[in-house]
């Protein structure tokens, strides 16, 4: 009977109920999309980095584990590394940020192909002249670019030479010399990738490199990739925490307002319940149950919305953003939505429970 009253109360004000559910849904989507994006993008980056086929990476002295650095490492390193025993291929890249989360990567095309074990072109082919760019299929889709088109990156016009299958280090490649010169990094590299002649020689090679370049961060690829998680990306967890906190406040305010107006509007009904002998706890119970229903339905809606945001992102920004669905966060999002909603009901609920019955019955 109590549950019937709860359901009927919610049905009685369909617009308010729908809006509250929507708001809680947005709160949940905000959290789940953000977490899904963080994970998706890290995962995509891990997969692409693995796709280069290297065993070891050498980074400039003083650079952080993760993060973009320009190119402060001399190309002379590469010449030294190539001559070390058990090195099959070594190649350097230059990474240049072009706004947002997008980057362009300068590569030595021949070496890059050798290391990654071949590149599959879906359209067009390799660079034929200096001002050319190779893009992956995601980038091609996002920007609607095909071989022969020109695109402006870093204030330079590039002609699209080819569209390759994604999964090889990055999404946008240009010839390394051109990028070095454009960014005033002539003769410098951001990262050197090293491939051993045999997997069993990797540990020995790693030791040799560390001995040779004691000041440089040098990782085996597996070690590097295992470090590449949401937790290790500077600021990302703090960012997620801020968004979660904001969404809790948002959910709290929405439910507070919805329940506050509901209580005001139902003042007389609360008086009636009290005249019938309902205890304050009974009145509070009704409102808390209503809130719990709103939070449950809202969370469910929010989870559904994340499939929507993922579809939109896949459609509109396949190259810049990758969102995964994060079922392990569903219970967390539910707990957050419930906590915010119950907190939002506390004040209106207690106000209702304490309402004087005679005054409530006299309420117009």
């Amino acid at each position, binding site marked *: *009977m*109590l549950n*019937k*009253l709860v359901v*009927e*109360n919610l*049905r*009685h004000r369909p617009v308010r109920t729908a809006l509250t559910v929507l708001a809680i849904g947005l709160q949940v989507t905000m959290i789940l999309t953000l977490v899904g994006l963080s994970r998706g993008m890290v995962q995509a980056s891990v997969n692409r980095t693995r796709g280069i086929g290297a065993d070891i990476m050498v980074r400039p002295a003083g650079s952080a584990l993760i993060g973009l650095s320009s190119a402060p490492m001399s190309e002379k390193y590469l010449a030294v590394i190539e001559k070390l025993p058990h090195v099959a291929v070594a190649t350097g890249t230059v990474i240049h940020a072009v706004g947002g989360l997008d980057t362009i990567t300068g590569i030595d095309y021949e070496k890059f192909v050798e290391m990654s074990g071949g590149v599959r072109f879906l359209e067009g082919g390799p660079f034929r002249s200096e001002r050319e760019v190779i893009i992956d299929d995601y980038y091609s889709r996002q920007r609607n670019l095909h071989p022969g088109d020109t695109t402006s990156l870093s204030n330079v016009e590039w002609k699209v030479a080819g569209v390759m299958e994604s999964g090889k280090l990055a999404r946008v490649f240009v010839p390394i010399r051109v990028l070095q010169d454009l960014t005033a990094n002539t003769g410098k590299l951001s990262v050197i990738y090293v491939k051993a002649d045999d997997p069993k020689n990797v540990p020995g090679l790693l030791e040799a490199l560390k001995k040779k370049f004691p000041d440089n961060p040098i990782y085996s690829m597996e070690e590097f990739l295992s470090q590449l998680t949401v937790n290790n990306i500077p600021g990302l967890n703090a960012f997620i925490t801020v968004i979660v906190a904001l969404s809790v406040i948002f959910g709290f305010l929405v439910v507070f307002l919805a329940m506050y107006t509901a209580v005001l509007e139902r003042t*007389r*009904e609360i*008086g*009636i*319940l*009290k*005249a*019938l*002998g*309902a*205890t304050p706890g*009974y009145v509070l119970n009704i409102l808390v149950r209503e809130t719990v229903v709103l939070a449950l339905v809202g969370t469910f809606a929010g989870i559904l919305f994340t499939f929507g945001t993922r579809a939109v992102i896949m459609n509109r920004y396949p190259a810049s953003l990758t969102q995964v669905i994060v079922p392990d966060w569903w219970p967390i999002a539910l707990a957050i939505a419930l906590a915010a909603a119950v907190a939002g009901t506390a004040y209106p609920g207690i106000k209702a429970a304490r309402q004087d*019955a*005679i005054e409530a*019955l006299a309420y117009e």
Partner: protein
Amino acid sequence: MSDPLAFSTTLQANGAEPLIAARALKKTYVVGDVDVHALRGVDLEVERAEFVAIVGPSGSGKSTLFNILGGLTPPTAGAIHIDGVDLTRLTDGERTRLRREKIGFVFQRYNLLPTLTAADNIALARTIAGNVNHDDPEFNEILDLLGISHRLHHKPRAMSGGEQQRVAIARAIVNHPAILLADEPTGNLDTENSTIVLDLLRDLNGRLGQTILMITHNPEAAAYAHRIVHMRDGRVAGGP
């Protein structure tokens, strides 16, 4: 004395006391700096199975008396016993329980919950009282008596005032209260519906022995009662 409401049953058993006994009952509302003396010393006794009409000018304290009898508010001074229970000593929680177990209210404005059907309004009163036994033959008889059996699955807004008031009466008596308090139950009804409701109250009193106190401004309505109590300026005026 841990359970003042339960204590009453022993008194009820010997039946020595009237159902309602009020002595020098006072209620003062403090509104800002002003004291409003709503009741200035009410003396009243009501026996079991009586049907009493309470009449008097506006502001004479009739509703205030009902609010105290019904356990909605405590008196300021004086003595009041209902069914052996001393109302001056009850806590808020005990007054809530008094309302649940011993009192049925009927209001001028019907006061049904708008989101629930008639049947659910009645069922809610039962669940609040912890009464989950749905097969109450006596209650079905009452529904027939009230003539609303066919309207039970409608929501209040789809019902006429007379029908709503009959549902409200059914809700008030569903838990077999000791006292039915009806505050101007026909105040919003036309003559025809008033007659139906008043006949009903008289039937409930006559057939089931339901004790009824009814506030009214209408002498014809008051004539349905066994006894008429006149109130004036917060006191019971004259009378037996």
